[in-house]
């Protein structure tokens, strides 16, 4: 009793008027405990199941309210606002994790049963029911998306450079405007367009080939590449450019050696986002690249399978024994996610190697 009174008697002028460090955690756990009790009572009262997700969510909400109130009482309005925003920002992150975890759990738990060597060593040729694999679809997806990237990144990046570094006047305005318009091309329309275009110029009304798919995907990819690269290039401080010009570096070298390396992290993020955006496209590939159960390495002739089409058709058209088809669909989905993750990693590696070392 006396010891406690003594210890509170000492006043540290730097920490008065501040909530102690542990306060945040205590309030959080307290709010969850309160909501847990309330929901347990509701569950017991109505005989329904204990709703843990609702308890956690409302607990989080209660925490946000409480931390603001406590901070306001102890620390004043400015600190209270700061704590409120911190709590909101962290909860935004946690809320975004919920679907992510649910989705990954679903895909992994459903995909693992068929995530075996056979899945990566076989196509679906002559396979009915169990067995078979997605090698033809994986190859097709890599080839089609790879070609689309090969088309889109140079075109998109150069366009972004034009818009940021060179573009003045009507052409630049037109390009900016129409890149925006291009983001509005529905994926299925891109597929229809590619089909109509190649059917016309190659004079083959039933044309289906991988390269057409690449073109359709490029139409969807280019605006994303332009938009994100443009944003990143704009953020390069003008001082850097001017310093380079002052040293007599020609403009093109300034762009290649100063501007792009400075923004390479953002640009690669944008490109990977663009790839992720198109690699899962089903509708256009179904129209222009078609459906096949066999391997095809040639982008320029014959139908080529792709993973999204594989997942979609396995789900939509199962045989009378549904389970093997569903297993293959989920395993295909898992593979697709892993491919994009791998691309993401590579992009990060590239960004880390080439970007200049900054203060953070």
């Amino acid at each position, binding site marked *: 009793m006396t010891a406690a009174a003594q210890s509170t008697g000492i006043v540290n002028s730097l920490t008065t008027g501040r909530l102690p460090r542990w306060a945040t955690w205590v309030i959080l756990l307290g709010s969850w405990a309160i909501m847990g009790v309330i929901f347990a009572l509701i569950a017991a009262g109505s005989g329904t199941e204990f709703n843990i997700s609702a308890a956690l969510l409302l607990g989080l909400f209660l925490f946000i309210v409480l931390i603001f109130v406590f901070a306001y009482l102890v620390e004043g309005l400015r600190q209270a606002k700061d704590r409120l925003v911190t709590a909101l920002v962290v909860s935004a*992150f946690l809320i975004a994790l919920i679907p992510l975890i649910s989705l990954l759990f*679903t895909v992994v738990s459903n995909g693992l049963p068929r995530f075996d060597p056979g899945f990566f060593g076989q196509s679906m040729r002559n396979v009915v029911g169990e067995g078979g694999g997605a090698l033809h679809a994986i190859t097709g997806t890599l080839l089609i998306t790879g070609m689309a990237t090969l088309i889109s990144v140079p075109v998109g990046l150069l366009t972004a450079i034009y818009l940021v570094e060179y573009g003045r006047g009507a052409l630049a305005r037109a390009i900016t405007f129409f890149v925006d318009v291009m983001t509005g091309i529905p994926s299925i329309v891109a597929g*229809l367009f590619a089909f109509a275009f190649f059917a016309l110029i190659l004079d083959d009304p039933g044309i289906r080939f991988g390269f057409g798919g690449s073109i359709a995907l490029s139409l969807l990819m280019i605006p994303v590449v332009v938009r994100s690269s443009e944003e990143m290039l704009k953020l390069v401080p003008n001082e850097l450019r001017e310093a380079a010009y002052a040293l007599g570096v020609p403009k093109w070298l300034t762009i290649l050696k100063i501007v792009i390396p400075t923004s390479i*992290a953002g640009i690669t993020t944008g490109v990977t986002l663009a790839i992720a955006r198109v690699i899962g*496209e089903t509708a256009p590939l179904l129209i222009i690249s078609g459906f096949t159960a066999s391997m095809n390495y040639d982008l320029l002739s014959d139908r080529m399978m792709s993973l999204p089409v594989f997942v979609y058709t396995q789900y939509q058209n199962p045989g009378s024994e549904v389970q093997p088809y569903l297993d293959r669909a989920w395993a295909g989905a898992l593979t697709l996610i892993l491919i994009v993750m791998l691309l993401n990693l590579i992009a990060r590696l590239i960004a880390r190697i080439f970007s200049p070392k900054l203060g953070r």
Partner: protein
Amino acid sequence: MTTTSTRKPRSTLRPADRIFAGSTVIAGSLILAALAAVAVFLIAESIPALIVDPAELKGAPSSFWAYVGPLAFGTVWAAFLALVMALPISIGIALFISHFAPRRIAQGLGYIIDLLAAVPSVVFGLWGIKVLAPAVTPLYGWLVQNLGFLPFFAGGVSGTGRTILTVAIVLAVMIIPIITAVTREVFLQTPRLHEEAALALGATRWEMIQMAVIPFGRPGMISAAMLGLGRALGETMVVAMVLSPALVINFVLTGSQNPSTIAGNIALNFPEANGVDVNALIATGMILFVITLVINSIARIVINRRKAFSGAN
């Protein structure tokens, strides 16, 4: 021709400079050419649907516009709902990663969110059908029972959870990583000096963000939101797989009769369409094109009014 008298103080254009500048112009023009080709294709294929007697269209609507109206409404409504959910969360995540999380783990957290971008739409569709829709059905039941007086939850509740709200949630999850990735990069580019100046003057972290980060990042945030909106407007497979559509206009979020979206409607009806119905579907595609164009133009105007912070002004 005298060479010396016209000399101006401008840098000499080296051949490499010309080539580089030229190639950027060619790339830009290529985009214009491609878009022109798509536009020609869309318009040429749409005309038959616009001039035909509407009675010959599927479902015999009173006019083509009566057919496309509910779809256009559904497209904008679903994308709007998705953006309303996604935008605050995305900005929160971006701020968390760029300014709140401990520096050591921030990169890793960013990668976790990028994982969401790695999920293809057909997988989102499967997840929406198999996991999300059954999970939210009881919640919808509760909403309709307790908040039924609001127009959003009026009428009967869907028995399968395949409503426009479910679709909007999936769409929001899909566009969160896109918006987050761009805003995060923009926030990270905030001039260090601005931030430190604010903190040195005694600002709390939130006040620093309000004063330095948000104004600097606003055009980027709007741009990111538009990228996300573009994706939500044009998303095909998720809508086709998850939504229980009908040709109606209403604001009910939890019912069985949901307005469909243009892209989803094309995916659903294209396989069995023939004759003028194909043209009608492509014409709806053109409408989607126009909708995106209008929304993007508005965003452009907003961004251009706040150009001051761009490094390359």
